[in-house]
């Protein structure tokens, strides 16, 4: 029996690895179920000379376009993405022409009647490629007003990737039973930004709420990949009351890894601490039952001022162990041992690294905006995070990317810091970064695609201080006087490309790296394909 289990597990690793982890395409949000956002294959995008020639080849704007909050996925020369207008599109990756859309033109869009922010407009969930009964399928989450209360319950959809024909639509996995914004008797659940995970014969998706009006009880739902029916043997709820919304995409490796939102207060209300409280946590869930294997909850209920853990986790198969790494909305980034949930490191570190945050410790955990997942490249994690000044100047990291050495000592945690150009520097400045061979891609809220080179690939432009508010000459002196201090000179990496994407608007999603091409979509309602010269 053990042998059979082992074989099943290896088959999963290899098959899903072939389909996702090793794909030259970009078949899932963050590229694969580990959510590493790392394109392993060589291409012109991994060549610092060639990537600097990136230029827009085509753009696609659907009729009646709203913003794109989902990210594109790319598979077998097709691009798949849902729009805020409630339609899902398959495009020819070569020229951007429409191959099919779902629902068909003139059909009822997949939308909810509970509009409050972009997560609740049309299709905000990025898709994933799956194989269903020998047919290649594309799976995504979206509201559907044709069932239940007709207000837009959340469902999972599996479409034939070639034709757009419906293979199955799941029963409602997120219920909307009314639209009174402060009602605590109605259900206001939604899939929102959570991208489905295909894993273990199931599709897993996180459920949160409509704009905290009010918060709902967070959950993860599993449906069978074969027919879309809900597996009632799997059950995870974040609390016994409400809170702990799963805004992020579930990550899969040996088990499931999820992050959860707040539980203490919402728009117009609050509650005492629930007896079951998995809110504001990074969790490992048993893949068949949903049981909590371990929980890392650094912000206690008493300090919960709405720092949702909304970025989701990346599994890093690093040289020092399997790490589960994620930035929390309050600006701290955490690395946890996948096996037992013990903390490898916190960034920045402090007494909280071992004991969690405590009332009176001077730290603040508000509804700040570190919401983007990071990218994992070898032992390096690239992320928008608060940095060394997060305790005193929480917003300073919004326009920055930090590259963190995940296997280094605390002193060497920061590999480099970049103030990303062509971004406002405020909240929502950057989309989620992606990476190939040390070259990092990120979209900005001013409609640019920026490409940054790790200094091992292309020399940095100069040195700056690991503490962004310490001038370099002072920092250099400090580093000389206190060689073990975390305050030291670190590289400011080179920008290889900064491409304007006309009409892109703010870029909320990730750049998908497939072959020699980059695919990215923006709030302006356009999808772009960029290609590097041979």
């Amino acid at each position, binding site marked *: 029996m053990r042998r059979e289990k082992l074989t099943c597990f*290896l088959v999963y690793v290899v098959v899903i690895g072939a389909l996702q982890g090793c794909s030259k395409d970009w078949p899932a949000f963050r590229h694969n179920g580990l959510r590493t956002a790392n394109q392993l294959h060589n291409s012109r995008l991994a060549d610092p000379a060639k990537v600097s020639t990136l230029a827009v080849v085509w753009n696609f704007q659907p009729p009646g376009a709203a913003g794109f909050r989902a990210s594109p996925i790319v598979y077998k020369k097709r691009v798949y993405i849902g729009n805020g207008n409630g339609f899902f599109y398959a495009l020819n990756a070569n020229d951007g022409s429409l191959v099919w859309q779902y629902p068909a033109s003139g059909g009822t869009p997949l939308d909810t009647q509970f509009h409050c922010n972009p997560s609740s407009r049309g299709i905000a969930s990025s898709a994933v490629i799956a194989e269903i009964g020998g047919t290649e399928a594309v799976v995504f989450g979206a509201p559907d007003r044709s069932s239940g209360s007709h207000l837009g319950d959340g469902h999972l959809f599996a479409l034939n990737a070639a034709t757009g024909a419906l293979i199955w639509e799941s029963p409602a996995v997120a219920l909307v039973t009314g639209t009174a914004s402060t009602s605590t008797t109605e259900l206001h659940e939604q899939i929102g930004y959570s991208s489905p995970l295909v894993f273990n014969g199931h599709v897993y998706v996180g459920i949160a709420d409509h704009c905290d009006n009010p918060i709902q009880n967070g959950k993860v739902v599993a449906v069978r990949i074969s027919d879309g029916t809900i597996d009632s043997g799997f059950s995870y709820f974040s609390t016994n009351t409400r809170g702990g919304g799963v805004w992020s995409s579930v990550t899969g490796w040996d088990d499931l890894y999820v992050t959860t939102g707040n539980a203490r207060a919402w728009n117009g209300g609050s509650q005492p601490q629930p007896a079951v409280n998995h809110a504001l946590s990074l969790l490992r869930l048993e893949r068949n039952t949903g049981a909590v294997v371990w929980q890392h909850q650094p912000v206690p209920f008493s300090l919960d001022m709405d720092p949702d853990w909304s970025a989701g986790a990346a599994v890093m198969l690093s040289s020092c162990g399997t790490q589960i790494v994620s930035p929390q909305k309050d600006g701290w980034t955490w690395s946890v041992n996948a096996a037992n949930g013990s903390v490898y490191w916190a960034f920045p570190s402090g007494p909280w690294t071992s004991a969690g945050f405590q009332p009176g410790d*001077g730290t603040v955990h508000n509804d700040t905006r570190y919401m983007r997942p990071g990218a994992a490249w070898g032992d390096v994690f690239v992320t928008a995070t608060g940095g060394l000044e997060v305790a005193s100047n929480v917003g300073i990291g919004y326009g920055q990317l930090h590259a963190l050495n995940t296997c*280094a000592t605390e002193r060497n945690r920061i*590999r480099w810091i970049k103030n990303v150009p062509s971004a406002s520097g405020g909240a929502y400045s950057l989309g989620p970064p992606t990476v190939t061979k040390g070259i990092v891609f990120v979209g900005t809220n001013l409609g640019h695609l920026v490409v940054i080179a790790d200094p*091992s690939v292309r020399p940095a432009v100069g040195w700056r201080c690991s503490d962004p508010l310490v001038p370099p000459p*002072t920092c*250099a002196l400090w580093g000389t006087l206190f060689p073990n201090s975390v305050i030291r000179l670190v*590289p*400011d990496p080179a920008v290889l490309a900064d491409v304007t994407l006309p009409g892109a608007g703010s870029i909320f999603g990730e750049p998908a790296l497939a072959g020699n091409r980059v695919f990215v979509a923006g709030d302006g309602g356009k999808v772009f394909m960029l290609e590097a010269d041979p």
Partner: protein
Amino acid sequence: MNLRRKHWKFPATAFLLFCLLLSSGCGTSQKPEKTPLLPEAGPEERNFSPDQSKSPYVEAGKGLLTRTVFETDAPGDLHVEVRDLLVGPGQTTASVTLPGAAIFEVRLGSGTIVVNDKARQIQTGATMAVSEGESFVIENKGENPIAIRVHFIHAK
């Protein structure tokens, strides 16, 4: 027993071939990839990035860095200012007097603050008041910096 072994032998071989076939595009990249640290800046390094903070710390006497985070005029001919103080590991600052009454909030680190010759231990999360005209010295015997947010009000 033998039948069971034979039953597994072929699938195991086929499985290995299957793995090799499918993983050929990935090379060794599925293995943990050690990413070497970058070289350190040399002691004489002066190639500083032009991309720097608009509100950096400046030295305000021996062992003490300070920067203004926020300031504004207030009713009653007053001025409100928020500053950050940073004291390096192993440092003892010179005696400092602020031009107004201040509230100190320790954001990071631990050490000793001496106000008018009275010593007090401070740690992350501690707050204390310093009256107008009082001088203070901060001593950091730890290995990490002490960061203090200071809110103070003084006459314009």
